[in-house]
């Protein structure tokens, strides 16, 4: 499904701000894999997501998705294959546009935009049904501007939008981190529901170690631009938070002692 080989990325090369963000990442996902990604600040988690999505070009390596080499494709051309939800709830929706308009935009992900009407009657019905599954009452506010919604509502909507058109790969970058615990739980439950309903291949970055252990079938840990730990199946299920902490301690010599990961 996804095959990342030898991907390197250095930001601002040759300057005082030079930063090696990825140091040879190899990652292979089978169809239906739901992988949680953990790692300290600056480990390269967001960067690998951005490389897959094409936000920045890669320096070296190859990314193959669904049999297609997407390593050099511009971001907007990869969109057909990818559903994305960002950490910032403001990022995934257009605040000044209506809920149904946002959904219509997402429904056409990766398709050419022509001069036919931007939203059809049939689509409105479809969107209403989809919104009903969120159980947030948004189905009655379809013509409200998205800017009026709360962060949690926006994030739930973004998630729904990302899966409206089945993506080959779903990229979630700390998509519950900016929400209060109760809302975060709701959005995470929704995530699991949508992923299992459509059997989506998923990469989910999280700082919550419990979530990382309990959600998905595989877990990877990143450190200094590399994947340093990769577990799945029974071994992953039997993991304890303290095992992961020990792992962090081991690779970083204790520097994670006051990382926000401890909060989990």
């Amino acid at each position, binding site marked *: 499904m996804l095959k990342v080989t030898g991907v390197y990325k250095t930001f601002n090369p040759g300057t005082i701000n030079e930063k090696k963000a990825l140091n040879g990442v190899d990652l292979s996902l089978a169809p239906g894999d739901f992988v949680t990604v953990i790692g300290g600040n600056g480990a390269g988690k967001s960067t690998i997501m951005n490389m897959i*999505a094409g936000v920045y070009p890669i320096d070296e390596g190859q990314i193959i998705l669904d049999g297609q080499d997407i390593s050099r494709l*511009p*971001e*907007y*051309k990869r*969109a*057909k294959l*990818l559903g*994305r939800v960002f950490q910032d709830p*403001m*990022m*995934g*929706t*257009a*605040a*000044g*546009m209506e809920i149904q*308009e946002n959904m*219509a*935009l*997402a429904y*056409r*992900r*990766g*398709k050419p*935009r*022509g*001069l*036919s*009407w*931007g*939203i059809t009657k049939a689509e409105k019905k479809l969107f209403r049904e989809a919104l009903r599954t969120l159980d947030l009452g948004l189905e009655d506010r379809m013509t409200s501007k998205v800017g009026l919604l709360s962060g949690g509502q926006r994030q739930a909507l973004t998630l729904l939008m990302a899966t409206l058109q089945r993506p080959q790969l779903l990229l979630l970058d700390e998509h519950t981190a900016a929400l209060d615990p109760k809302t975060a739980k709701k959005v995470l439950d929704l995530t699991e529901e949508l992923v299992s309903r459509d059997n989506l291949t998923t990469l989910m970055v999280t700082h919550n170690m419990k979530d990382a252990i309990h959600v998905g079938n595989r877990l990877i840990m990143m450190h200094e631009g590399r994947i340093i730990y990769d577990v799945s199946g029974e071994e992953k299920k039997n993991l304890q938070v303290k095992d992961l902490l020990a792992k962090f301690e081991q690779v970083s010599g204790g520097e994670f002692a006051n990382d926000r990961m401890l909060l989990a």
Partner: protein
Amino acid sequence: MSSFFLAIMGAVSQGVLWSVMALGVYITFRLLDIADLSVDGTFALGGVTTAVLIVKGMNPILALVIATLAGMLAGLVTGLLHTKLGIPAILAGILTMISCYSINLRIAGGASNTPLLKADTVMSFLNDLFPALSKTATSLIIGLILTAAVVAFLYWFFGTEMGSALRATGNNERMIRALGVNTDTMKNIGLVISNGFVALSGGVVAQSQKYADVGMGTGTIVIGLASIVIGEVIFGNRFNFAYVLCSVVMGSVLYRIIIAIVLRFNFFTTGDLKLLTAIIVAFALSVPIIKNKVLQKSAGRKGR
């Protein structure tokens, strides 16, 4: 009193003719979130192109079509400078504006003024049909027909898939790119349509005033912004998109009326207009912040 009425009538018809330009500016300023200064150049480009073509014997309607195309081309230049060469939008617009000045002089054969005294215009066509109509009335009727067509077009276009993607580009560029839209293309399309309408407006204004001047575009962007913000302050950003577009047109008319009234005071001369316009724009754009400050203050007083 009757001279005052005539002045207001003239202002209304001017406002309607210029509103096509304001609608063009609305596309870039409000929908794409770009302050596009090329319009100072493309408004004059439209005027000069129309005037020269009419003098050369072209049908005035066809001349407007060519002028619109010229404006669209100039808009594309701004767009490419910005999206392909990475020049900041403001600067890209300034470069096009400056280039247009030279190009307009070339088109006018080096003359800064191209008169249309005896030539056919869209207005003179209408006057031939209805001789009873006054000059102001013909300009107003032409302006209303044109504005209605432009509003209808914009309402339709921004409801389409492409138009929605363009609005989303101005709203949240990262999001719409993640949804597979080439945002560079959208910005180019927006700049092309915008400058096409601005040039069209320059063309009808030239026909209405019976001359074109290479300097006629100076301050266009500010007048466009004034129309938009006056419309927003008076009519609010409510209801549907058609209402918002009409409020831009009304803003353009109100702007002309305000100017006409100000000029009634003998203290002000036409030379003061640009400064007054700038003050109106600065004031109207800062209304939201001033409002907030006032609200905060009164809330603070209540708190104590």
